[in-house]
C-alpha cells in the first residue's frame, strides 16, 4: 500500500472519524492504526486494501472524513463495513487499547469445572416437576432394544 504523507494523513483522519479519542480511550491514529497496525491487518485481510484506497481517495478528492464514510456507506454497505472492520481490527491489536478496554486476548484458562460447584445450581432443575420432562409415552416401547 502507498505510503505518501497525504495518503497517511487522509487515512488517519478517516480512521479517527470511526474511532476518535475520548477520555482515556485513544483514537485510531493515537495507537498507529494508519501505520504498522493496519499493515499487519491487511497482511491477513488483503482483500480490504482496495476499499482502504477507495476511502482515502474520497478524502483526497475533497470530501471530509465523515462525508467520505457516509458516501462509502451509501454506495456499498459491504465496503463500508469492510473498511470499518479493518480499522477496528487493527485498533484492537494495539497493546495500549487492550489494556484500556481490559482485553487480555484469548489466553489459556483451563475450562474444567468440578461438579460439586454445580450441585446447588442444578438441584432446583431436577426438583422442578413443572419443567420439561419426557413427552407422554416417551419411555421404552415393547420391542425396543
Amino acid at each position, binding site marked *: 500500500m502507498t505510503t505518501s504523507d497525504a495518503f497517511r494523513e487522509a487515512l488517519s483522519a478517516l480512521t479517527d472519524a470511526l474511532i476518535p479519542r475520548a477520555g482515556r480511550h485513544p483514537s485510531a491514529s493515537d495507537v498507529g492504526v494508519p501505520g504498522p497496525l493496519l499493515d499487519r491487518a491487511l497482511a491477513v485481510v488483503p482483500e480490504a486494501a482496495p476499499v482502504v484506497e477507495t476511502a482515502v481517495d474520497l478524502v483526497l478528492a475533497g470530501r471530509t472524513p465523515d462525508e467520505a464514510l457516509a458516501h462509502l456507506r451509501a454506495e456499498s454497505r459491504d465496503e463500508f463495513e469492510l473498511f470499518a472492520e479493518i480499522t477496528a481490527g487493527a485498533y484492537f491489536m494495539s497493546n495500549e487499547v487492550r489494556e484500556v478496554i481490559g*482485553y487480555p486476548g*484469548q489466553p489459556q484458562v*483451563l475450562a*474444567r469445572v468440578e*461438579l460439586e460447584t*454445580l450441585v446447588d445450581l*442444578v438441584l432446583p432443575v431436577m426438583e422442578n416437576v413443572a419443567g420439561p420432562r419426557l413427552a407422554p409415552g416417551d419411555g421404552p416401547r415393547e420391542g425396543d432394544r
Partner: protein
Amino acid sequence: MVAPNSPSPPTETDVLVIGSGPSGAVVAKRLFDAGVDVTVLEQGEWTDYDRARADTPEFELTARREWSSDPTQRHGKGDFPIDNTDSEVVPLMWNGVGGSSTSWAANWMRSKPSDFRVRTLDGVADDWPISYFDLEPHFRKVEPDFAVSGVEGDPAYPEGYAPPLPPVTLTPGGRRMAEAHNRIGWHWWPGSNAISTVSRGELNPCQQRTACMWGCVEGAKVSVDLTHWRPLVAQGLTLVSGARVTQIQTNAQGHATGAVFTDSAGVERSIAARTVVVAANAVGTPRLLLASGRDGSSNGLANSSGLVGRRLMLHPTAGVVGLFDEDLQSYRGPWGQMAYTLQFYETDDSRDFVRGAKWSLQPTGGPLQSTKRWPWGDSQFWGKGFHAELARRFGRSLSWGIICEDLPDESNRVVLDGDNPDETGMPGVRIEYSTSENSKRMLRFMTARAVESFEAASATRTVVAPQVRETGWHMLGTAKMGEDPGTSVVNRYGRAHDVPNLYVVDGSVWPTSSGMNPTATIAAFASWAADHMLEDQRLKEVPA
C-alpha cells in the same frame, strides 16, 4: 501439525466410505476395528491447524475468513459449486478431512425420545422407524470417542445419559443465567459439548480460547480428523484425500460395484467395492446419488421414491443478546455452549406452532466481534459513540442461540445444477428452500421468550439479532429413512431400498429434524448402521 500423506488409492476394497465427517468416521472406525478392509475417499484435504490463530492478535480478523463455514465464500479445495440464490438459508459445511466437525461448535445434544415420534405425538411429519432407545446404546458407544463433556442427570432426558467427561466451565455469565432460570422456574442445564476437559488420546483439555469454530489451537475441540482419522490412518486405514467421487457404479442387477473418482492430480480413477457407504451430508449425498443415475437417468441412483434431494431441513436459527452492567468476561468460554435450555422444546397446544427449539448459551466474542452487524444490528455507533457502546457490549453480554425444529417439506430440496459443474465436470447443486410459516411463528415466540430470559437475569438491554441467511449448519432429510420404499430412500439401517449394498449414514436419512444440534444423533445412527453392516452377509458377497 503435519498432515498424513495421502496414499495411492487402491483399485478395490471391501467397504468404500465416501465422506470423512463424523458419520463416515464412526462407520469406518467400527468396521476397521472389526477387521474389515475399509477405504475412505474424501474430496477435501487435511486441515492445517498451524493456521489456527486464537493465540495471536490477528485472531478476530482471520477467524470468520479462513475458517468460514460457507463454501461459497471459502472456495477450499474440496468445495464445489452451490447456487443458493433461491434459498432463504445458506447451507454451511466444511469439505475436508473431518467434514463439518472441523468448523462446528461442538454442541453435543442427543435427540430426545419425542423427536423420533413427531407424527404420533403431534400429527405432523413422520415417525422415525427407530426410537431413541434403539440408538441409546450407540450414543453410549460413540460419546467417549467424541470426548463428550457435561453433567449427568438432565431431567429432560431419560435416565442413564451420563456424559463421560467433566463439564466445561459454566462461566460467570452461565451462572448468572442459571440462577435466573432457577428463579423463574425455567429449565436449563450445564452445556454438553464434544470438547475435551482432560488430556485424552489426541485431545488436550479446553483452555477457553473461545475459538471453537475457527481453529482450536489447543486441540481440545473434537473434530474427527483428530479423534478418528489420525489414529486410524496410523493403524493402517486407507484414507485418500483430494478424491472427488463423481459416480457410484452399479451392475445390471442394481448392486453397487464401486465408484469413479478424480484424484488430487485430476486423474479419473475407479475403485471396486462390495459395499458402498455414503456419508457426504444432506447436500453432498443427494448430489452424488442424483449424479449416479444409471445410463444417464435423471432420476439418479436409489431414487425410485423420488425423494433423493427432497425434504431438505435446515434448522431456522435466531440469536438474542443480553447486555449487563457487570463484567462477565464474555469474550471467554466454550463456543460450544456454556449451558442450554429445553424449556420450550416440546409442542404446546396453546401456541400457534408445533414442535419447539433448543437454546444454547454462548459467549459474544472479542472486541472486534462487538462491532459487527450480527448480532448487534445495524446501529450507528461509529464515531462519537464508539467507546461508550463498545464498553456496554464487550465482555458484558451473553447470547442465546436458538435452533428451531424444521418440519419437512418436499419442495425444499437439493437439485443438480448442470450449468455449474465443478472442475471434474460433475454438476454442482442448487438449493431451493423456504422458511415455513410454522418456523416463522416459532422464531417470533422464541426470541420473545429469550428476551424475557435475559430480563429475568437483570439484563439492562436486549438485542434481537437480525435474521441472516448464513445459518444452515444443520443439513438434514434428503435421503429419508423409512420402511416403505415408496416413501423413503433407505431403511432403518440406512440401507438403500433400491440398492441392497448401498448405505447412507449421514443426516440425509433423518425423517424429521429435531430441534437439536444433530451431530450426536448422526454419530449414534452411524454406529447403529455400522453394527448392522457387520451382521449383513452382503459384506461378504462379491458383486456380480
